[in-house]
C-alpha cells in the first residue's frame, strides 16, 4: 500500500515538473543555507577552540606601563617599569605555576643565502611550560643558558621551512642581528593565534641573550612583559590581585598613585572570543532557518493549489473507497517527498559551496554528520508540518461535493 502510494506521489510530482522543481528550490536554498551557515559557524568555533588550546590555559600578562617622573609621563615606549626581579617575586606567590619575563621584537634572520624576518622572543624556559609548547626536534634551553646568555635558539616550523628548507635545522648556526645563534630545537606547530598571526613564525632565545645581543636594551634586567600562569581558572582573579599589590609594593607606589603596569587576562579574552563565535554561529543558523521556513511555506502554498486543482481526483478516489487517512497520506507523502528531495539536493549544494569556500578563502569549515542529520530531520518536519494542513483539507472534502467540482 505504502509502495503504491509512494509511486503515485512520484507520478504526481512528475506531472508538473517545473512547479515541483520550483517548490523544491525553496527547500534546496533553505537547507543549503543552513548547511553552509552551520559549516562556517562551526568552523569559526573550531578555529577559536583550536587557537585557545594552543595558547595555554589560565594565562595573563603584565605589561610595562607609563610612569611619571616629576610630572612627565613617559609612554610604554620609555624605559620599562618591570624587571626580572619582579618576575622572580611573582613566582613566589601562591597559586602561580609559571612566570616568564619576555622581551620580543621582529628581527631579520639569516642562514646561508636565505633570510627571513620573524618574531624573536627572549624569555625563560618557563615560557614553554606556560604556553604548553613542546619541542618536536632537538631540545630546549635551561636556566643556565639564561644565566650565561648563551646564543642558542628554538625555532618555529615556519622559520624552519623558510630558512632551512629540507635541511635539519638542529645544530645549524643562523644569524640574528649579525650574532650567530645555534639552533638547538624545533618547536611544535601551533598555527594562528586569535589575532591571526602565525605562531610558528617565531624564534625563542634566552632572555639575557636577547637583551644583550638582539634588542640592545639600555636597562639590563628590565622587561616589557611578564607572562604569568595561574594554577587554575578559579585562582586567576586572586592571583591577579596579589600580583597587583605585590608590584605596587615593589615599585613603591603610594596610595592614590596610578599603576605603572597593566594586566591583560589572555584566557578571558579567548573565552569571550569563543563566546562571540558561538553567538555568531547561532545567529547564522537562525538566519538560515528563516529561508528554510520560507521554503516550507512554499511547499504549503503549492500543496494547497494542488489540492484545489485535484478536487475532482480526490472525489473519484473517495468514490471508489479511499478513506480520509488514505487521502491524507497521499498528500502528506507528496509534501514530504518534495521536502526530502529538496533537502538532499540542498545538502549536496551546501556541502559543495562550503568546501568551495574552504578551498578559495581558506576559511575553516566544519562539516559534521550531525548538521546533515539536523537538516534532514528539519526537512521531514517541515514537509509534515506544512503538508499537514493542505492534506487534511483534502481528506475532509465531501465525496459528492468533490465529484461535482469542475
Amino acid at each position: 500500500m505504502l509502495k503504491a502510494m509512494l509511486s503515485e506521489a512520484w507520478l504526481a510530482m512528475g506531472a508538473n515538473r517545473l512547479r515541483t522543481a520550483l517548490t523544491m528550490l525553496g527547500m534546496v536554498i533553505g537547507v543549503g543555507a543552513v548547511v553552509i551557515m552551520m559549516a562556517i559557524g562551526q568552523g569559526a568555533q573550531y578555529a577559536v577552540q583550536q587557537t585557545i588550546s594552543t595558547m595555554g590555559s589560565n594565562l595573563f600578562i603584565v605589561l610595562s606601563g607609563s610612569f611619571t617622573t616629576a610630572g612627565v609621563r613617559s609612554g610604554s615606549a620609555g624605559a620599562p617599569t618591570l624587571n626580572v626581579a619582579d618576575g622572580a617575586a611573582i613566582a613566589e606567590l601562591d597559586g602561580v605555576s609559571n612566570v616568564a619575563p619576555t622581551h620580543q621584537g621582529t628581527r631579520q634572520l639569516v642562514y646561508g643565502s636565505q633570510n627571513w624576518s620573524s618574531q624573536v622572543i627572549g624569555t625563560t624556559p618557563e615560557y614553554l611550560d606556560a604556553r604548553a609548547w613542546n619541542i618536536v626536534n632537538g631540545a630546549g634551553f635551561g636556566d643556565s643558558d639564561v644565566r650565561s646568555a648563551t646564543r642558542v635558539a628554538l625555532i618555529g616550523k615556519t622559520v624552519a621551512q623558510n630558512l632551512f628548507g629540507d635541511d635539519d635545522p638542529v645544530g645549524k648556526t643562523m644569524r640574528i642581528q649579525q650574532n650567530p645563534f645555534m639552533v638547538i630545537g624545533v618547536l611544535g606547530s601551533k598555527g594562528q593565534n586569535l589575532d591571526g598571526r602565525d605562531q610558528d613564525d617565531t624564534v625563542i632565545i634566552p632572555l639575557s641573550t636577547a637583551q644583550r645581543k638582539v634588542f640592545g636594551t639600555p636597562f639590563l634586567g628590565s622587561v616589557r612583559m611578564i607572562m604569568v600562569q595561574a594554577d587554575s581558572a578559579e585562582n586567576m582573579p586572586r592571583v591577579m590581585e596579589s600580583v597587583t599589590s605585590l608590584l605596587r609594593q615593589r615599585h613603591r607606589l603610594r596610595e592614590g598613585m596610578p599603576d605603572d603596569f597593566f594586566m591583560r587576562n589572555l584566557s578571558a579574552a579567548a573565552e569571550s572570543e569563543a563566546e562571540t563565535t558561538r553567538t555568531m554561529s547561532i545567529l547564522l543558523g537562525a538566519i538560515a532557518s528563516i529561508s528554510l521556513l520560507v521554503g516550507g511555506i512554499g511547499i504549503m502554498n503549492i500543496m494547497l493549489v494542488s489540492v484545489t486543482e485535484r478536487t475532482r481526483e480526490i472525489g473519484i478516489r473517495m468514490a471508489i473507497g479511499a478513506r480520509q487517512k488514505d487521502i491524507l497520506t497521499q498528500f502528506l507523502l507528496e509534501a514530504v517527498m518534495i521536502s526530502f528531495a529538496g533537502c538532499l539536493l540542498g545538502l549536496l549544494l551546501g556541502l559543495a559551496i562550503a568546501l568551495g569556500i574552504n578551498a578559495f578563502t581558506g576559511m575553516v569549515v566544519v562539516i559534521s554528520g550531525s548538521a546533515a542529520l539536523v537538516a534532514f530531520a528539519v526537512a521531514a518536519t517541515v514537509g509534515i508540518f506544512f503538508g499537514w494542513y493542505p492534506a487534511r483539507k483534502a481528506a475532509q472534502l465531501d465525496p459528492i461535493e468533490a465529484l461535482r467540482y469542475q
Partner: protein
Amino acid sequence: MAEPVIRVVGLGKSYATAAGLFPALKGVDLEVRPGEYIAIMGPSGSGKSTFMNLLGCLDTPSIGDYYLAGENVAHMAKDALAILRNRTLGFVFQGFNLLPRMSLQDNVALPLVYAGADKESRRAAARELLDKVGLGKYAESLPNRISGGQQQRVAIARALVNKPRLILADEPTGNLDSHTSEEIMRLFGELNAEGITIVLVTHEPDIAAHAKRQVKFLDGQIVSDHLTGQAA
C-alpha cells in the same frame, strides 16, 4: 426469499438552498433483491441522482433508513462508508471519472490499492477485468487515448474489481451514442446474468427496456414500480 441487497425505508434528502430547505427526495421505500436488474426513470430534477448517491453511500440521508446487505448504513461514519464503497458496491458515473494520468490498468486496480491488495494480485485482477470488457490490449494506455464507450467499459471494470454483488450506475450511457450505448447495456446484461445486482438510472426507454424492473420517480417520490418483459 433471499434477504434484500437494498432496503430503503422512508428515505428522504433535503438540500439547503438560498430559498430554504429543498426536499429533493420525499420518503422513498424500495427493496432490491439479489440478482435484480432495475432501471430508474423519471424527468429531470425528480431526484434520481440524489437517490443513487444515497444508495452508493456517497451521501447521507436527511431522514429514513438504508439497509445495505442487511446493515443500516444511514448514519455510518465517513470511513465506514468508504469501506462499503470500496468492497460492497461498484459505482459507474455518467462522466466515466477515470483518473487521467494513470494507465487503464492502474485505474482499474485503484480500488484494490485502497483494499490493501498486493501489487501482483492488483495487476492480475485488473488484467482479467480489462480482458473481460474487451480492452486488455489497451492496459498500458492513458484514458484519453480511447473512446468514450471504451472509457465507460474501463469504469465498469473498475467498479467490478473488488467483486461487489451490486453495481449502481447513474446514466451510464448518458454521454454515449446509441450504438455504443447498446454495447454497454449488453455488458450490463452479461453481468446480471452472472448474478450481479444492477440498479441504473436512464432517461431513455430503449435503455430501460434492458432491465427486468422499472421504477419511475416524480418530484422525489416513486410513482410506479413494475416488471418488464425482460423479467423471466
